């Protein structure tokens, strides 16, 4: 998945733009895994995650002609769509507006233009290992912020900890991750 040759992915998306249904099936086979996994991580519910996968591939099909390889890999394009749709659902579930609503803003996740360089499988493996190497409390704070769309105050309320503690946990956790990723 992550090691896919970008030009091959881009070629598949090009065929989708010309209406080739077989190209969609190929794209699905290459990338449905991480799309589904991210949907599940954000939404928790497998059924919701399946709906997100369906929406993302439908959107990819419709927008195939607008995909610009210069702005990011196909995988990152799909991941941005997944994140957006999953978080919209999460907000709907919480009774919030789907658009940035004053409670929390869209995280600066790897979006188009920021990720021209493909993320290697090796990077993902190390990131996962580094994340698991964090103290439980730090990992939880980071994950609640990044994957569950909670603001630092909401995290503090949920964990019943002072706001300052949460801020520090997030920052220290990211500093540790940085150290782990910069080592070697």
């Amino acid at each position, binding site marked *: 998945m*992550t090691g896919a040759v970008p030009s091959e992915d881009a070629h598949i998306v090009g065929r989708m733009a010309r*209406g080739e*249904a077989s190209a*969609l*099936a190929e794209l*699905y*086979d290459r990338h*449905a895994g991480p799309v*589904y*996994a*991210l949907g*599940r991580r954000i939404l928790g519910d*497998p059924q919701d995650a*399946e709906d997100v*996968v*369906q929406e993302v591939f*439908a*959107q990819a*099909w*419709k927008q195939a002609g607008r995909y610009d390889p210069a702005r990011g890999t196909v995988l990152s394009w799909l991941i*941005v*769509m*997944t994140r*957006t*749709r999953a978080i919209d659902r999460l907000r709907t579930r919480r009774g919030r507006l*789907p*658009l*940035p609503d*004053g409670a*929390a*803003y*869209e995280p*600066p*996740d*790897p*979006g*188009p*233009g*920021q990720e021209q360089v493909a*993320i290697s499988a090796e990077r*993902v493996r190390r*990131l*996962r290992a580094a*994340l698991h190497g964090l103290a439980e409390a730090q990992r939880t704070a*980071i994950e609640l*912020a*990044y*994957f569950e769309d909670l*603001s*630092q*105050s909401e*995290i503090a309320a949920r964990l019943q900890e002072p706001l*300052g503690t949460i801020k520090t946990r*997030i*920052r220290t*956790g*990211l*500093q540790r*991750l940085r150290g782990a*990723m910069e080592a070697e």
Partner: protein
Amino acid sequence: MTDGMAHDELHESTGAYVLGALTVEERAAFETHLATCDACREEVRAFREVVRGLDLAVDQHAPPAALRERVIASTARLRVAGVDPPAARRVSAAYWMTAAAAAAAVSVGIYAATLRGRVQSLEDELLALRSETSTLRRDLEQARTRTAVAERMTFVLAANDMRRVDLTGQAAAPSAAGRALWSPSSGLIFSADLPPAPSDRAYQLWVVTATGPVSAGLLTETPQGGLTLVSNTIEAADPQALAVTLEPAGGVPAPTGPMYLVGKI
């Protein structure tokens, strides 16, 4: 809470900022801080790099096998509704209405996603522009200084009381030389060839008057290796001579060091 956010507290917010865990108000306060804090800016950049790929680093689950068929089938319906040639046109009007509504719903979603991507890229642009602004501000400062110097030189050169004063090397450096274009009404342009000053010393130019020396300022090194000074009008009644001495870096109110150049006015 946000109004009173102290610097330390702001500094602690780098992580929450990068993960999108600040409220709109907190974020605005943090970004104001970010514009002037290099350390936070550096950390934000580093954290952004760290979280690159975090979306992929979640626990992997294989999607259920039946999902593949559902995705392909639902996309095939879209294909008929959206982009297919005339062959597909025999579908009923009701189908078209449904398809149009579905397409509209999808475009709203797409629009939201586009907006979001746009906000993100605008934020990145803002960050880049802010740092560019501070660089430009520095450049502007420098340009203003250079303009002021150039202007002063023009005044001196054009002044009708401008005269030239040649300075000759003294015991400390017999082969040294200096020259000044001096206008009591407009200022002074001075340049000299002198041995390089030690790092803790600087050459200082004096206007020697009947009542004692008046500082005209420190000489600065030019990229070409010479020493120059451009000064505004110097308050010195009854000037007799110009002299250069070697003094502690930063200069002194009255000469203390060895004399390097002297020239009678």
